[in-house]
């Protein structure tokens, strides 16, 4: 049985309400939101709106239960050991900043952090900033098509490395970091006592993740990229890894005792959730992840891969198209960065938009990766479980058009 795109589109209010045809191929930036999130958030904000954890009237009870149930849903989605390992943040960027900011309190000058040149700025700048504390930033280089070169792991991993932060999938090339490479990174990290963080922002849109099997210590992602609401993100941390971190932000709800001279912190996850959290957004995310948990991911992967191959084949037939990323479909997400001759990506996107094709141009918050590939910007098309062959064909036709219009 194949994956039924029109059925799934009916579950996305975006598609149900589309007035003019639009081929949305920008899901890597923000995916459309599933009905489950609309419904769960709407119902929550009408029937159970209240602050959480701090009151005992019926609405406060209902809100707290809903919020904690969402935490349990995230734990299931990631196969975490316990709901207490899930910290809600405002996004993937905030989750990574949380780890960097909390870790900063115990870093010494000369300690090292290892990243890669493929990282999104959100998984690069927070680590780069630790240089203010004398921390050394090292980076794994890229190969010719923009994939992380793991053969350089041993050379780049110093004895004083405290954390390795890598993307689980590139937002530009779509390259997946393989389970084997992750295992090698984890083993190497263990040997020097470093923690491992994976940036799952792109990966989560394509199915549940098993953090226990991955063996890493931290995993971060955003709701808006996996069919959930904006304003919510997740940091998963292995129990021991979270326990050893002090808070990043402070405020209501994350303390034990407050005195004028000193305060004590609550246990994780509350220690990391200062202030009123994004309650309705957590509830919306929980609902969407439950929906995702029930999907037939093998069929969806086959569908996405078929579209990817169709797209790749069509692109090869367009004169002047240059592609980046892994050649093998199994090693990548259906996310493709390309250049059309020497045309600027924003000019290309403009023409594509006039043809009802929404893709993204620019450096995609990955300037280092682009520079490593010798370009400043690319056009990126990204497919999701609601994409279909029409979308792909429209993109290909529009690229032919763009080549003509911009020549």
């Amino acid at each position, binding site marked *: 049985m194949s994956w039924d795109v029109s059925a799934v589109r009916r579950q996305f209010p975006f598609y149900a309400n589309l007035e003019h045809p639009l081929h949305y191929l920008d899901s890597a930036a923000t995916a459309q939101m599933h009905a489950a999130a609309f419904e769960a958030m709407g119902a929550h904000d009408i029937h159970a709106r209240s602050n959480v954890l701090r*009151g*005992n009237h019926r609405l*406060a*009870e209902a809100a*707290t239960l809903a919020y904690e149930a969402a935490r349990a849903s995230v734990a299931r989605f990631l196969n975490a050991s316990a709901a207490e390992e899930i910290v809600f943040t405002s996004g993937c960027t905030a989750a990574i900043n949380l780890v960097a900011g909390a870790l900063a309190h115990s870093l010494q000058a000369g300690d090292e952090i290892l990243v890669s040149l493929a990282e999104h700025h959100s998984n690069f700048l927070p680590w780069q900033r630790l240089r203010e504390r004398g921390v050394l930033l090292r980076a794994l280089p890229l190969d010719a098509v923009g994939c992380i070169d793991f053969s350089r792991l041993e050379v780049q991993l110093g004895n004083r490395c405290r954390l390795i932060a890598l993307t689980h999938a590139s937002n530009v090339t779509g390259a997946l970091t393989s389970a084997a490479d992750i295992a090698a990174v984890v083993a190497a990290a263990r040997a020097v006592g470093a923690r491992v963080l994976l940036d799952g922002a792109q990966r989560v849109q394509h199915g549940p993740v098993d953090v226990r099997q991955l063996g890493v210590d931290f995993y971060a992602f955003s709701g808006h990229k996996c069919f959930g609401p904006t304003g919510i993100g997740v940091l998963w941390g292995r129990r021991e890894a979270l326990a050893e971190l002090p808070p990043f932000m402070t405020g209501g709800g994350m303390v034990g*005792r407050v005195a004028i001279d000193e305060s004590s912190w609550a246990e994780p996850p*509350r220690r990391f959730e200062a202030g009123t959290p994004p309650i309705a957004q957590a509830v919306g995310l929980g609902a969407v992840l439950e929906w995702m948990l029930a999907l037939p991911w093998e069929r969806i992967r086959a569908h996405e891969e078929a579209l990817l191959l169709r797209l790749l084949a069509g692109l090869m037939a367009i004169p002047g198209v240059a592609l980046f990323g892994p050649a093998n479909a199994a090693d990548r997400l259906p996310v493709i960065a390309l250049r059309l001759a020497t045309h600027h990506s924003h000019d290309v996107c403009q023409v594509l938009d006039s043809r009802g094709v929404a893709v993204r141009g620019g450096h995609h918050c990955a300037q280092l990766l682009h520079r490593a590939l010798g370009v400043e910007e690319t056009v990126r098309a990204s497919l999701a479980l609601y994409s279909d062959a029409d979308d792909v064909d429209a993109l290909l036709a529009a690229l032919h058009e763009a080549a003509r219009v911009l020549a």
Partner: protein
Amino acid sequence: MNEAIYQQALKDLAQAAHGAGRLAGHDGEALRDNPLCGDRVRIEIVRNAGLITALAQETRGCLLARASASLLGLRVPGQTPEQIAAVARALREMLNGGELAADAWPEWAMFQPVRGHRSRHGCVLLPLEALLQALAA
């Protein structure tokens, strides 16, 4: 519905404050806060030949916490750590909607109306958690 929680028996139990105070000497103690309301329980115990022979509790908290701590003051002396572990299990199960185990202290039954109020479970459990911590120390 709710004032079923505040039966006379529960108020009396809190009022009785069994075991209230401190012990001159002890083999274990623990201080536990509920960060949500500032409630605080201190438990001190004396152990002898595998038994908990004395318990003192100091509780600043709501009626639920005070009644629960008072029950510890009444019932714990003479029990083994294993019995306390079983008691804690039985209480948690009951709060989560289960039946009260037949061999559990019968007074726990008066906390049954708290079941539907998740935010108050912590109040009932706080003294017991402090006791488990004192035992583990």
